[in-house]
């Protein structure tokens, strides 16, 4: 079922909760007049009639909600509310209470949706109407209508065709004009010239009661071309929409603590060096800063790829993007947001982009050869006929016939239709493709570079081994862990499940562990040193101990384990003839262990973002697969790039493909699909050239009538489209679908509250 396309991958739950802040919500809401405001929330799990009903009914129970409407295609709900009758912060909890994840997304800039798409659809409707009706008259003419009847039909055709072409041709004329003005040609230039000349000639023929008019050819040409263009646009729009659904909208900012102790929200770009900020557990560091007081640990996994959290104490420097794991901190901003780590990564991304924009798309390369050839051919036909026969009327007719017959209908459809079919196939497997050019580049790669944390691995620690089966001890461990937001605690809660809570006062000791006093017994869950147990350095991963009054009861071992199918995905990439490398910012022992586990011989550790850019920018064309902020420049610098949906926003926006499933099989699948697509594109181009090789000599020799032109054009377009559709069926059974909504299978810490 198409409605069950997975779009999982929620941003981490501990991100800033805008949904709870009335003031921020009012600023983000769109004013509708009459005091009503409108907000949009993403509801990625909604997929059926019952979902619509549940969400809408629960929202309409709120007094402030005037209308609530779920858009199932976009997986969003649009809520119109009256702030005078209730707080906007109650809306998101109401959706959550009905059982759906939700978060705020940016309201569409335009209420009517996507204006460019509707313009294309309207043009398509007009062109379709005109082509259909004119074809009716043309068929009558071809079947023998003559004299006055033929003239009448020509005139009616002209009256339909002229406004229709003027309206439906605008997307092509505009684009052709833009290209010509800067001295370039694209596919739209020959299209515009062909359509315009054919129409002008037909008007002349009609006026002098001529035999042949090409109104049907010019309108059906526009119709076919608009189909390709509309599909192409739809494909991109769908990917863009799915990607914005992944991004949680957080008005970036920080809470400033003023000299008099009062607190105020400041927007990110107003944070100045020297400001004192409050950083709560679960929040990300807004700008590069220094810790003033408090102690905590920072999760750098998305910043540098390190899995082991850093303990921080007053005086420690922390980087923008790191997540504060537990203690409440006061920090002093050291740099403005424009100089912070995130901004530096964005600058590096821009610098890395140059190489890629020089690459031209297959269709444009074809057009740059095609247009001059076609125009030379038409001009030669015109001059040759005129000079040889002296019949300038026949000369211009035949020259226009050449332009029409070579009008790159098949050529203009040959590439986009394949990309559209490929994008649909990828989408059905939970992979979002940003545009067709990425698919062309993905077919050209010869090596793949992986990031470690969060890409090859799950990016969060998982309980891999434990000792002790004493139920009471496990209960206590789960209860202690449930009180903490530390990644190891979360992993422990996921592994042990929610147990009966134990009445005890629980205290968290940053950098050490958690302790509780219950019935005169002191329980501790934490690092070996703190628990008074000799640390064992021979084990891989991080170990946590549980002690009762200093007596060790159990240990738990955690590691950031590879994704389920990392081995098979790597193996199938090797089978595709690609070289694989692992580039990570993490410590070298962790990287080496993982590399040998998944079978990658070529690895490098401790890389800085710039090193990663250098690593993918070397010889050959590399695909970069990564998720962290530190990967973003490399994602942009690589020939083509891929990111999991769980990636940092900046990484997701830098990547060409985003895969939403949990499985790495998406990577070989994209490459295989891209290669199939490339070979079908080549076949289609060959078909288009073959068609021209047959039709052009006929046109040059003056044997093409409007009837032949219509048949030739439609059949070549059809063949190209049918050939593209083959991609849908190719290799269908070989790749398993990603498990749907895999992240949902585990209890998400923080949702349960």
């Amino acid at each position: 079922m198409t409605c069950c396309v997975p779009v999982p991958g929620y941003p981490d739950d501990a991100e800033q909760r805008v949904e709870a802040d009335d003031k921020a919500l009012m600023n983000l809401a769109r004013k509708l007049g009459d005091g009503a405001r409108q907000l949009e929330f993403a509801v990625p799990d909604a997929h059926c009639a019952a979902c619509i009903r549940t969400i809408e009914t629960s929202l309409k129970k709120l007094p402030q909600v005037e209308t609530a409407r779920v858009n199932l295609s976009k997986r969003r709900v649009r809520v119109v509310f009256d702030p005078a009758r209730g707080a906007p912060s109650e809306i998101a909890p109401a959706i959550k209470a009905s059982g759906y994840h939700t978060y705020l997304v940016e309201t569409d800039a335009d209420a009517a949706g996507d204006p460019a798409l509707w313009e294309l659809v309207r043009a398509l409707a007009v062109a379709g109407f005109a082509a259909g009706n004119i074809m009716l008259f043309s068929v009558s003419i071809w079947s023998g209508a003559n004299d006055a009847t033929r003239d009448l039909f020509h005139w009616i055709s002209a009256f339909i065709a002229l406004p229709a072409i003027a309206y439906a041709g605008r997307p092509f004329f505009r684009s052709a004009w833009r290209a010509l003005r800067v001295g370039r040609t694209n596919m739209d230039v020959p299209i515009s010239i062909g359509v315009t000349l054919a129409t002008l000639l037909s008007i002349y023929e009609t006026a002098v009661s001529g035999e042949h008019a090409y109104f049907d050819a010019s309108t059906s040409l526009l119709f076919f071309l608009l189909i390709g263009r509309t599909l192409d646009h739809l494909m991109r729009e769908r990917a863009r929409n799915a990607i914005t659904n992944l991004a949680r909208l957080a008005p970036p900012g920080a809470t400033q603590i003023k000299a008099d102790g009062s607190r105020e929200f400041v927007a990110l770009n107003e944070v100045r060096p020297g400001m004192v900020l409050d950083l709560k557990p679960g929040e990300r560091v807004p700008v590069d800063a220094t810790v003033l007081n408090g102690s905590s640990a920072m999760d750098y996994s998305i910043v540098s790829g390190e899995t082991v959290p850093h303990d921080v104490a007053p005086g420690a420097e922390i980087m923008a993007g790191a997540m504060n794991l537990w203690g409440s901190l006061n920090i002093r901003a050291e740099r403005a947001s424009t100089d912070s780590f995130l901004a530096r990564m964005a600058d590096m991304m821009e610098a890395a982009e140059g190489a890629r924009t020089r690459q031209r798309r297959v269709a444009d390369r074809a057009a740059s050869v095609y247009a001059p050839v076609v125009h030379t051919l038409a001009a030669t036909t015109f001059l040759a006929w005129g000079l040889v026969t002296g019949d300038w009327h026949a000369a211009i007719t035949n020259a226009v016939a050449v332009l029409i017959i070579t009008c790159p209908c098949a050529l203009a459809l040959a590439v986009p239709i394949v990309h559209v079919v490929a994008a649909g196939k990828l989408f059905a497997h939970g992979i979002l493709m940003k545009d067709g050019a990425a698919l062309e580049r993905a077919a050209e790669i010869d090596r793949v570079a992986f990031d470690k944390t969060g890409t090859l691995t799950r990016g969060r620690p998982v309980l891999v081994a434990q000792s002790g089966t004493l139920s009471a001890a496990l209960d206590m461990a789960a209860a202690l862990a449930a009180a903490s937001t530390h990644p190891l605690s979360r992993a422990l809660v996921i592994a042990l499940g929610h147990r009966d809570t134990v009445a005890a006062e629980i205290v968290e000791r940053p950098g050490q562990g958690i302790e509780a006093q219950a019935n005169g017994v002191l329980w501790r869950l934490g690092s070996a040193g703190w628990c008074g147990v000799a640390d064992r350095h021979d084990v891989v991963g991080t170990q946590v101990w549980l002690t009762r009054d200093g007596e060790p009861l159990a240990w738990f071992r955690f590691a950031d384990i590879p994704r389920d199918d990392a081995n098979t995905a790597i193996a199938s990439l090797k089978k595709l003839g690609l070289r694989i490398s692992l580039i990570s910012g993490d410590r070298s022992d962790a990287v080496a262990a993982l590399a040998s586990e998944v079978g990658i011989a070529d690895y490098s550790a401790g890389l800085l973002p710039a090193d990663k850019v250098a690593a993918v920018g070397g010889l050959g064309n590399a695909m970069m697969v990564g998720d962290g902020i530190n990967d973003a420049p490399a994602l942009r610098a690589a020939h083509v790039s891929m990111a999991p949906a769980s990636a940092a926003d900046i990484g997701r926006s830098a990547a060409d493909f985003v895969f939403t499933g949990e499985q790495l099989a998406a990577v070989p699948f994209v490459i295989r699909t891209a290669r199939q697509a490339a070979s079908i594109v080549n076949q289609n181009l060959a078909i288009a050239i073959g068609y021209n090789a047959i039709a052009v000599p006929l046109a040059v020799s003056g044997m093409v009538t409007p009837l032949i032109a219509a048949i030739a054009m439609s059949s070549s377009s059809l063949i190209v489209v049918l050939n593209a559709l083959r991609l849908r069926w190719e290799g269908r059974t070989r790749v398993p679908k990603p498990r749907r909504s895999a992240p949902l299978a585990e209890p998400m810490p923080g949702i349960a509250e």
Partner: protein
Amino acid sequence: MSGLVVLIPIAIFLGVLALVSFLWALRNGQYEDLEGASQRILNDDDSPE
């Protein structure tokens, strides 16, 4: 020939009618959420909105 005088206007009128109703539906937001529309029919709402 006299038949054409009647039939052609009728044919074109019908075509224009179809075009206009499509454009109306487009403007009216009928194509905003095709997936939702196909599911909503399963919801048994007796009260018209």
